[in-house]
């Protein structure tokens, strides 16, 4: 309980600190929204120029970027400070975190308030409202619950991928560049039904880098395309659980890496 109180207190103070720099605060929100411009353009083109994609209706396809964006926005808000950790490692901040009686991973998340997440989440919420309102699906309690689980699972999967990169950064700070590549890849391919891509690329984005589990598979299950993804239905349906499992595994890897941390500057 004390831990939650401390986290809330630090988050509140960090948020207040960001508010004090008004222009910087507004710019960060704007950059969070503008960063998603490619997704907005994609959604606009999809709805105005095409009736569908890869055998999916446009309204069904829209559910993919909406789910991914919302998962991403929540990741940025709650767990995103693990991205770009290499610089902090080189500055020796991890050393300082190791001196406090608090888990290092938690301290990393409490470094500052991610104002840009407000922009991300604003765009994502708008997109999700649009996707649901255009959808012909019957939004039963079961479907809504699965959608919520999918968003949370997507957030955890993204957090897992960046936690793996952060774990590598503990030993090789330059591994941070892989984080940038990962961000680029998630942004580029995260909005499409992956069956439009060549089979090898689709396979790579499913079993190599599990991007398909963030939004594509959950959206396929929700819209009735779950049996035509080329992946066993149960596996696609289990995406939210896989997100949780991936995150827990990544946290184990993080703990192991931290135990083998060799520090910077001797």
């Amino acid at each position: 309980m004390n831990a939650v109180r401390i986290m809330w207190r630090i988050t509140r103070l960090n948020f207040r600190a960001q508010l004090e720099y008004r222009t910087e605060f507004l710019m960060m929100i704007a950059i969070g929204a503008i960063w998603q411009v490619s997704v907005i353009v994609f959604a606009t083109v999809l709805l105005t120029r095409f009736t569908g994609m890869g055998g999916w209706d446009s309204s069904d396809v829209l559910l993919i970027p909406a789910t991914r964006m919302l998962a991403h926005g929540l990741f940025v808000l709650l767990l995103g400070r693990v991205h770009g950790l290499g610089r902090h490692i080189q500055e020796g901040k991890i050393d300082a975190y190791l001196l406090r009686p608090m888990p290092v991973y938690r301290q990393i998340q409490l470094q500052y308030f991610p104002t840009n997440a407000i922009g991300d989440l604003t765009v994502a919420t708008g997109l999700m409202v649009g996707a649901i309102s255009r959808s012909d699906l019957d939004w039963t309690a079961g479907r809504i619950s699965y959608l919520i689980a999918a968003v949370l699972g997507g957030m955890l999967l993204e957090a897992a991928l960046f936690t793996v990169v952060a774990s590598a950064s503990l030993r090789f700070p330059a591994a941070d560049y892989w984080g940038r590549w990962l961000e680029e890849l998630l942004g580029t391919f995260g909005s499409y039904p992956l069956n439009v891509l060549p089979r090898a690329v689709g396979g790579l984005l499913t079993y190599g880098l599990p991007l398909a589990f963030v939004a594509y598979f959950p959206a396929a299950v929700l819209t009735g395309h779950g049996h035509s993804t080329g992946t066993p239905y149960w596996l696609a349906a289990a995406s939210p659980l896989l997100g949780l499992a991936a995150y827990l595994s990544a946290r184990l890897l993080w703990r192991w890496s931290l135990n083998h941390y060799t520090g910077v500057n001797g």
Partner: protein
Amino acid sequence: MIGSIEVRGLSRTFHTTVRRPGFTGALRSLVNPERAVKHAVSDITFDVSQGELLALLGPNGAGKSTTIKMLTGILTPTSGEARVAGVVPYRERERNARNIGAVFGQRTQLWWDLPVRESFAILRDIYEVPRAEHAARLREFDDILELSTFWDTRVRHLSLGQRVRCDLAAALLHDPMVVFLDEPTIGMDVVVKEQVREFLRHQVEERGRTVLLTTHDMTEVERLAERVVLINHGRLVLDGTLDEIRRRFGSTWQVRATLADPHTPVGPLPGIVLVRRDGPQVVFGPDGPAAPTVHTALKLVIERYEVTGVAVDEADLEDVMRAAYVHANAEAV
């Protein structure tokens, strides 16, 4: 023992890649990297008693920071054992963190974007310090470190001296038994340095804290430490009191006396040799490794001869430590 530090055969090895010179060398290192083992700390053993301030000295790259990092739980040693206030720091990091305070002079442990007082309040919650106790301690620290003039400022806007004073306070707010200070006064002006030294003296003498200090500032060592551990190339080369070290390496003192009677016969004293004599002016110096300290020599001269004037020329601690480093390097070769 509560509040003490015990170090037994502590070693830390790093594996690095040897950088070959030039562009071709860099390419060769890429294709066929040559691995090297660097012994940052090798088999060091020492103790620090409760309420003692020990200066851990050595040239740059000697292994001082690596030692402190192992004792604070940041690094795990390759071999050996360490206990800080009865806790093995690298096995029980969070428990150890509650018993210790640490300041790394070049890095802050405060929240960069928050006013200092807010950081203090967060630390109060993390370490679960009762509010009244926290307020009393903050008042006590403010009396010496004059924090209240800038503690409502964000950390990012503080000067180095202000920031380190805040870091010192932050490290001690939870009343730790053991404090580690890695070059705490680096880059500070003399006034702030003296303020910090007074604070540290107060913490050791009045509060009985155990302090392990690394510094290159010999004035600081002289003012604060009674005992010194010198490490070089990762090895402990000397462990003794300042007097012992002066006796061993500071053999450049001279006692100049003016005799009341210029005809008084003058001879050697225990561990002291007559360097020269010119009428009533006599100069004594140390005689071999058994020579006394300059203070003892002065006492002996005054007791033995009737003098009308006396003066002392003494190598300062910087010279003594330089001699010790040179000696340690020669032994390593």
